[in-house]
């Protein structure tokens, strides 16, 4: 083997070495631990699974769910009832324990996942309270306040896994399986797609990712993991009571996740083990452990937002050599050939109301292939509303939007982005913590449906496919002159580069229509010239463009046609020189704002 081929293998070993070492330590500890120590170790394993699940919804999807404790409790109760009362074995009760909270999550997901942060937190908290009340007042079914005793251990096909070392091994096998699945689902591009969702939900929709679907998948997984953790907990303790569902379970899970790290595998282990053993170590300080818990949570959220695992990763990265990452070689993509015939975009009677204000009052417009339509109008005339309605970022209040003969009026933003309408925003919608290359790569992967947990399970968001998407992304970045920024973080991107990245991200989805909202603002004249040449080049390729702009010296030469909006209505439309001389336009807008030559 050549040394070049050996290097990645060695590096792979280097990455795994801490894990192998940790597993050996754990095994050595388990082999020598007392029965009580084994029990704590098994309980810690269940907590690892709980936190791994919470990482999906809280860490990856960035939604503060307060129902994780309830899902855990439901899993525990299902196992207790099926195993303790009906004598079912592990192979029957475990899947049901996973399924039950997942089904509950699915049932409430549609209305709840739409809610903004605080409402989502409250709704999940309300759900947890209802579940907890149901457990306490469930009569004989849930054992009331006393709960259910005599929950059997893990039984496979009539063989009872012995308590002690056997149970620890079984629990930690589940931990290993849960970890494997978790890593598999999040280490590829799908994990980065969730980072977009957290960092800038608009950007997620703009690259064709459905916020709803990403959140739903994370919510279901978190519930399923919690159910599994609850089931293990029930098997280990042999008793399930309403305490398994108390808010303190939720708070502990939150603390473990925040302290350990909310997106890293190691974070789940560090958080769960630390907070399970902390009370054991502080036993001499009886009762102070919960105080320490609160203090640790506060300290972590303030001082280590990415948790201990994040801080460790940063430290390791700072110690190690900083290799300059190699840029992927750009792919050579064919020049797109749009079909001809129908008008590209036909908008009829588009209307929108905000409370008492009519932002758009029945607007009609068409855009042909290869045409640049400039949209101007005073502030509040409805320009951005027009862009939001056509791209599905706001629901319409009447009218239809037809793209190449297909009615896209009722589609959501991510579907419209994939249907062929790309857009930019007044403030670039770029997730701060991703690199330029990543966001454009994700747009390519989104186009081919290579994102999401299903794609991740099939391995479609990794290795050669990822490399291909990266190479294609480089093609778009190079064609916009932004390849030099490929490894820059979006947060650190200078303004003059942001428009190039935005357009590269739009083109990566191979759109038919591109909508730009004030693309020239903040650019120097030289940059404006380059932007204008870029827009003409895109039009020559057959794309339709809708450009909203205040900057007349930029827009008038580049646009084929100008549409003038005033108070939600089109007051003029035509070639730039016609519009320029239209008296209604001059009085409504141009005359007031811009001195015209």
């Amino acid at each position: 083997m050549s040394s070049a081929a050996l290097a990645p293998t060695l590096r792979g070993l280097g990455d795994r070495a801490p894990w192998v070492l940790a597993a050996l330590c754990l095994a050595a500890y388990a082999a020598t631990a007392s029965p009580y120590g084994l029990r704590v170790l098994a309980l810690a394993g269940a907590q690892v699974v709980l936190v791994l699940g919470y990482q999906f919804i809280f860490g990856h999807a960035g939604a503060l769910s307060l129902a994780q404790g309830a899902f855990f409790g439901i899993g525990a109760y299902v196992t207790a009832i099926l195993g303790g009362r009906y004598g079912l074995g592990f192979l029957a009760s475990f899947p049901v324990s996973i399924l039950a909270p997942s089904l509950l999550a699915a049932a409430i997901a549609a209305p709840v996942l739409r809610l903004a942060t605080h409402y989502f937190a409250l709704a999940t908290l309300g759900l947890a309270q209802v579940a907890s009340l149901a457990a306490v007042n469930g009569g004989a079914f849930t054992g009331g306040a006393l709960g259910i005793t005599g929950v059997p251990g893990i039984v496979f096909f009539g063989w009872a896994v012995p308590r002690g070392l056997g149970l620890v091994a079984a629990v930690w096998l589940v931990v290993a399986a849960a970890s494997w699945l978790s890593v598999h689902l999040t280490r590829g591009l799908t994990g980065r797609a969730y980072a977009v969702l957290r960092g800038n939900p608009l950007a997620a929709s703009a690259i064709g990712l459905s916020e709803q679907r990403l959140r739903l998948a994370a919510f279901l997984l978190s519930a399923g993991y919690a159910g599994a953790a609850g089931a293990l907990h029930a098997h280990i303790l042999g008793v399930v009571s309403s305490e398994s569902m108390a808010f303190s379970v939720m708070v502990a899970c939150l603390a473990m996740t925040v302290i350990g790290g909310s997106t890293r595998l190691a974070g789940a282990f560090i958080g769960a083990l630390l907070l399970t053993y902390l009370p054991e170590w502080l036993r001499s300080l009886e009762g102070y452990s919960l105080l320490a818990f609160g203090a640790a949570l506060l300290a972590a959220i303030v001082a280590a937002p990415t948790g201990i695992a994040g801080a460790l990763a940063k430290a390791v990265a700072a110690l190690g050599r900083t290799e300059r990452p190699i840029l992927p070689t750009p792919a050579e993509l064919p020049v797109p050939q749009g079909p001809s015939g129908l008008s590209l975009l036909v908008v009829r009677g588009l209307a929108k109301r905000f409370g008492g204000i009519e932002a758009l009052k029945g607007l009609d417009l068409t855009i042909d292939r290869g045409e640049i339509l400039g949209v101007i109008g005073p502030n509040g005339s409805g320009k951005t509303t027009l862009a939001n309605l056509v791209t599905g970022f706001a629901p319409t209040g009447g009218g239809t939007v037809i793209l190449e003969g297909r009615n896209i009026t009722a589609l959501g933003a991510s579907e419209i982005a994939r249907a062929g309408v790309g857009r930019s925003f007044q403030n670039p919608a770029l997730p701060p913590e991703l690199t330029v290359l990543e966001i454009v790569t994700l747009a390519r992967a989104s186009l081919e449906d290579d994102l999401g947990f299903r794609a991740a399970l099939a391995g479609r968001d990794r290795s050669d496919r990822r490399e291909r998407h990266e190479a294609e992304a480089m093609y778009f970045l190079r064609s916009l002159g932004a390849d030099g920024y490929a490894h820059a973080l979006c947060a650190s991107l200078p303004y003059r580069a942001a428009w190039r990245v935005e357009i590269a991200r739009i083109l990566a989805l191979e759109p038919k229509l591109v909508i730009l909202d004030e693309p020239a603002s903040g650019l120097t004249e030289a940059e404006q010239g380059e932007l204008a040449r870029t827009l003409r080049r895109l039009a020559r390729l057959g794309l339709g463009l809708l450009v909203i702009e205040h900057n007349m010296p930029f827009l008038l030469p580049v646009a084929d046609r100008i549409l003038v909006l005033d108070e939600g209505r089109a007051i003029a439309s035509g070639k730039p020189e016609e519009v320029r001389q239209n008296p209604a336009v001059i009085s409504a807008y141009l005359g007031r704002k811009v001195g015209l030559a």
Partner: protein
Amino acid sequence: MSPEKSRGSMTAFMQLAFNGLALGAAYALVALGFVLVLNATSAVNFAQGDLVMVGGYGAAALAAVLPLPGIALLPMVMAAMALLGLAVAALAYFPLMRRPASAVFISTIAVGLLLQNGALHIFGPEPRAAPPVLSGGQLHLGHVVLPYQSLAIVAVAAVLVLGQRWLFAHTQLGRRMRATAQDREMAAALGIPVRGMIALTFALAAALAGASGALLSNQFFVTPTEGGALILKAYIAVVIGGWGSLEGAVLGALLIGEFETLVAAWFGYTVASALLYGALLVILMARPQGFYGEAAERRA
């Protein structure tokens, strides 16, 4: 108390409605403090319920040293709680000012944990009671019994709610606090000390929580873990009243107090709680902007 045992169902209803009003008035102080912080910081202070609990213990502990009526202890409790509010702001809000709002949610959960376990350590798990505001007597209005304590709760809550309104509407300080809540950047540009205003808001919210705790703990006693239920009720009141609306929060709290008291009288406390949370879920799903509406849909 079951309604059959009362003399007439009307009398029973009046009695319950009054009890509900007194409970709702105390909740209103909790909800008001919650919504003040919410407006000033766009963040949920999840420790607001635990601050109420601390206020209850504070009043009980103070009464053990100073044998004064509740009305004399109240200003002292509120002043001490205002200081605690400043500490909460310094520990759990200011370091996270530029982070997502959920970070403050979590940091205040941590503060709640500290307060609960601190109280457990100092006072133990047994319930405590603060002295009554005036005395333990009661007023009879027909067959309806109006305990002085309940009347005092309603009166004190009314004074504090109106006082807060007066502060915001008619004083320079209140206007500055409102400006900070509405648009922090603009307020800072106008020379308003934004951090100071936010710190004051935390102090005011904690003082209101303290008052609520001192008032509630006479009748309902105080335990280290009661904060959890209270924050949930404040949260629900604010949702019902329209996120961010001060009047809405007070109305929502009164509504919850009445709902709980009336439903609990007929169906028991568990059913009342379950129905309350169930109603909350339905409201959130059907009308997330609350009954009175949030700020209108933003113009894009």
